[in-house]
């Protein structure tokens, strides 16, 4: 699935005009705590989140996220959009909530890119 197909499925609006809509999205991950995202997400995923601050984009950049979808029609502050444009990470806002979004994307055949959490913290990922 690419970013443009993703945008259609989530009925979303693109907030970053410079985005490459043909970029491949390999799966999904949903979380509001950035450490949870960093702990579980695999590369090239779409990140579904209710958080709107610039740290979402930094987290996305560190974790090689392919696109960010903001739930419940949230509009992030300008500094978040500016950073996303600078780092070339597509940001989409969707009218749906987290559960609905996960369901829609899953139904459309998108796999989960959340690694199950390793309960033994001394083991290496």
């Amino acid at each position, binding site marked *: 699935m690419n970013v443009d197909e993703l945008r259609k499925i989530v009925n979303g609006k693109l907030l970053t005009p410079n985005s*490459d809509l043909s970029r491949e999205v390999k799966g999904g991950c949903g979380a*509001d*705590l950035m450490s949870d995202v*960093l702990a579980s997400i695999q590369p090239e995923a779409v990140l579904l989140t209710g958080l709107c601050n610039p*740290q979402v984009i*930094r987290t996305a950049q*560190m974790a090689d996220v392919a696109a960010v979808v903001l739930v419940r029609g949230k509009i992030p502050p300008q500094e978040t959009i500016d950073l996303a444009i600078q780092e070339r990470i597509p940001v989409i806002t969707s009218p749906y909530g987290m559960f609905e979004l996960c369901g829609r994307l899953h139904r459309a055949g998108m796999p989960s890119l959340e690694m199950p959490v390793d309960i033994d913290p001394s083991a290496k*990922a």
Partner: protein
Amino acid sequence: MENSSSQKNRVITDKVVESISRVEELAYELKIDQVMTHDPQTIAPDVVMEDVLEIFRKALISGAPVVSGDALVGILSMEDLIHCLRKNDLRAPVSEYMTKKVITVKNSEQVIEALKFFVNTKLGRLPVVDIDGKLVGILTKGDVTRGLLKALQQDYQTEELIRYRASHLFEDIESDRTSLILRYDIKAGDFVKGGTASSHIKRALLRLGASPQIARRVGIAIYEAEMNLIIHTTRGGVIRIEIEPHQILMDAYDDGPGIPDVNLAMKPGYSTATEEIRELGFGAGMGLVNISRCVDQMKLESVVDKGTRLKMKIFLNEENTVGEATP
């Protein structure tokens, strides 16, 4: 030649794939002045249409601005010429057939402004004027395409060159042990800027030829450490990265307040972050756990009222060295 092909493979091109969207960005960055044709062929309003035929043919153009003295008075296109030919009126002056209502763009405007006209109208060319309204050039869709392609190529070559140079950084330097040290001062409470250092470090590693996996592991570990300095320290701290061909040492240290129970701090889910920090998406108590997952070695030392030092190490195997093209 085997050597040169392996060098070629070492250049990481993840950014290059994204150059498609860069076109749109460039449309905002480039000024019309940079892509337009300067000193275009102009025609006077009293020239007869028959002569225009010859002017177009000689200059290999399909339209030209009509200028009287210093003033732009119209624009004449191939379509106007055809219109005139059908009426068999080639003796008529240009002023009778030219389009008088001319849409112009300014040379100081961004290319995107011209693109808007090209998309929304059927215009094939736009006269370009300066701040005083004087004609300084002409812009066609072809000019825009050429300008964008040229800028893209330059972009691509610049990043390629940076990467190529950086990925060979250590090769020509002889020492018993060469390393590159990067230092970043992190301010306490500067939440908005948080992640800037991590972002720079990740990019530096990619330019040095690190694999995307290594860059990602370092990026995540440093990002968690950087956010810890921002959220938990009294006066901020320092991140120090020492890059060697076969290992990356990462160090995050501060001068307080220190962690009373280091073992407890390492426990997944344990956090002392305030509700405010949690609302910002941090303080899940997973930071140090995440770091330990990303690095090969980690050591956390802390003394209350003195400070905390987090040392991390990632080893690079033969295929994944940085700063050298040939392992």
